[in-house]
């Protein structure tokens, strides 16, 4: 229990360091801007790609395998670039955290120094972690199934606890990747109870769970809005070609009976009594060609509207990415510092901090 209570003292120390080193936020702000620009450019790429496909013909069945493959490759390259950029920022930031905790102050040059010294080690750690997950995937699946699926959640938490100090150790101890891995395991094993409580607090603030909760609320709202728009569209008589039960017959002209059931009649002003006195040739019913032209026009308008909505959605997503990254940044910086404080102190009692005045 005494070691667990030390967590709060370490958080106090991390807060003090955080207050004196506002410089730590600059790389994170830049990363948030880059993320937002990535989302924006990705959205525009998708928009131009899809509208290019649709521009040739209404149907989507004209895409080729090679264009799909190139789109897939672009996505893979984008992921790799994103991973490398994240590692660049992480290596620079982690060194700044270390300098802040050890010396009390981080400098702007520490960021570039950290990138030069530790980028490839961080990339290697990420690759090794990925490889380990691939190698141990069958074991993970077996454990997950034998524990009635609880293992699927619990195992990653345990793995994250034991690997949590890997990158911290590489920088704090200035050692090799495998020595740092050993140090991380030793640290987690030696202080398991207190360290697990600390890591649970860190995960609670920085893991995707609470973000997913927020995103789930947004997704529920958006899907409710879409459902209500779809329901309205399904019942509105304004555009008969978008009603779910309408399917134009593209082969032959409508016969009289079929004409009475068609939307062309339903939305015209002709009454059955008027039709009976007309010769069939004079009945102003639509041909299949007319129907197909109307379908094309409506589809085009629909796609234009969808295109505009997509662009607005991408813009909103970019702003959302930026704002949510800024909020996440506060927790990332604070708990990043806390990790280094915990590793430095190794659950030993630290000296009491200096008194400061509380604002009135």
């Amino acid at each position, binding site marked *: 229990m005494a070691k667990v209570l030390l967590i709060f*003292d370490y958080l*106090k120390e991390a807060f003090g360091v955080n207050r004196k080193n506002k410089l730590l936020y600059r790389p994170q702000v830049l990363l948030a801007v880059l993320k937002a620009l990535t989302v924006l450019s990705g959205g525009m790429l998708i928009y131009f790609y899809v509208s290019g496909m649709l521009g040739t013909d209404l149907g989507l069945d004209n895409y080729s395998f090679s264009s799909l493959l190139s789109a897939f490759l672009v996505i893979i390259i984008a992921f790799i670039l994103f991973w490398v950029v994240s590692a660049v920022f992480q290596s620079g930031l982690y060194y700044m955290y270390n300098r802040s905790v050890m010396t009390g102050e981080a400098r702007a040059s520490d960021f570039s120094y950290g990138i030069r010294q530790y980028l490839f080690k961080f990339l290697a750690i990420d690759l090794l972690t990925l490889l380990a997950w691939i190698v141990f995937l069958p074991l993970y699946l077996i454990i997950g199934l034998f524990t009635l699926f*609880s293992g699927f959640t619990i195992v990653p938490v345990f793995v994250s606890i034991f690997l949590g100090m890997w990158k911290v150790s590489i920088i704090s101890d200035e050692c090799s990747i495998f020595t740092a891995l050993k140090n991380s395991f030793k640290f987690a094993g030696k202080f398991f109870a207190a360290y697990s409580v600390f890591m649970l607090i860190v995960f*609670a603030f920085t893991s995707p769970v609470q*973000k997913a909760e927020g995103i789930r609320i*947004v997704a529920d709202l958006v899907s409710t809005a879409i459902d209500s728009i779809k329901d309205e569209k399904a019942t509105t008589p304004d555009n008969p070609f978008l009603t779910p039960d309408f399917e134009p017959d593209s082969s032959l002209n409508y016969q009289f009976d079929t004409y009475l059931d068609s939307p062309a009649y339903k939305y015209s002003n002709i009454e059955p009594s008027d039709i009976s006195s007309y010769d069939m040739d004079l009945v102003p019913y639509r041909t299949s060609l007319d129907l197909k032209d109307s379908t094309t026009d409506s589809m085009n308008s629909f796609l234009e509207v969808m295109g505009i909505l997509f662009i607005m959605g991408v813009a*909103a997503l970019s702003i*959302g990415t930026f704002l949510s990254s800024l909020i996440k940044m506060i927790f990332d910086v604070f708990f990043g510092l806390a990790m280094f404080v915990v590793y430095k102190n190794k659950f030993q009692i630290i000296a009491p901090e200096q*008194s400061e005045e509380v604002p009135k």
Partner: protein
Amino acid sequence: MNLFSITMDSFKESMQLSARNMKIFIPSIVSLVINVIAVLAFIVILIWFIAVSDFSELPDSDFISVLRATLPLTISGLFIFGIAIPTVYTMIEAGILGMLKAVIQTGKASADDFFNGLKKYWFPIFIGLGIVGIILLVLLLSILPVVLVILAGVLTFGWAFIFSGLLINIYFGVWATILVADDRGAWQAIKQGFSFGNRFFWPLIIIFLSSVFITNYILNLAGSIPFVGLLGIPVIASIMSTYFKLVVMKFYLTVRPENSLSQTV
């Protein structure tokens, strides 16, 4: 000592106090059991009502006839969910806060502290809940704040929804603690709670944000374990709720205006 340090000390001391006085968690678990019994009772009444009633003429009946036919069910539902559960909830809440006050002031809590708190504070808390409920209803009915929150929530991937809940907790979540800690009346406690939330905005954000994130994370972990989820989640939620109430009360008693500590900082 800065406010962040005081907040962390509140977490730390609350953890020590709750480890030494585990009985403070019993009332919230009892409250949970009572709620479950009340819901089960309503389900039994509903099943009995459906079994004994004749609904064949209902589709052709007017509104008054339907209302008359379902009157026993409506009355029992209103009684259970509108009167019984809120009354029991306020009684237990008053008892819990009484125990928390005793544990902070004396280091120990007992069943007597629970019943003394219940007797002394349940009615003012009941009134206070009504007042706060009306204030929140008026806020919800004003469309503009709701629209702004939804817009901000979508733009920030849900963070604004979390923060809007936090704001409500900060300004309307401390009054019951103040009512018990300082023996105030309901309205005075609500006013004082609002100004306390204003003055100690950031520490309260830390406390309530921690409450939301840590509780949700632990519940998600517990929920993934079969069988634990069914019974464990409500129990864990009750324990976490009591712990964070202790943190709020500890923080309030440390920094309230009458306290010498707040005068030296």
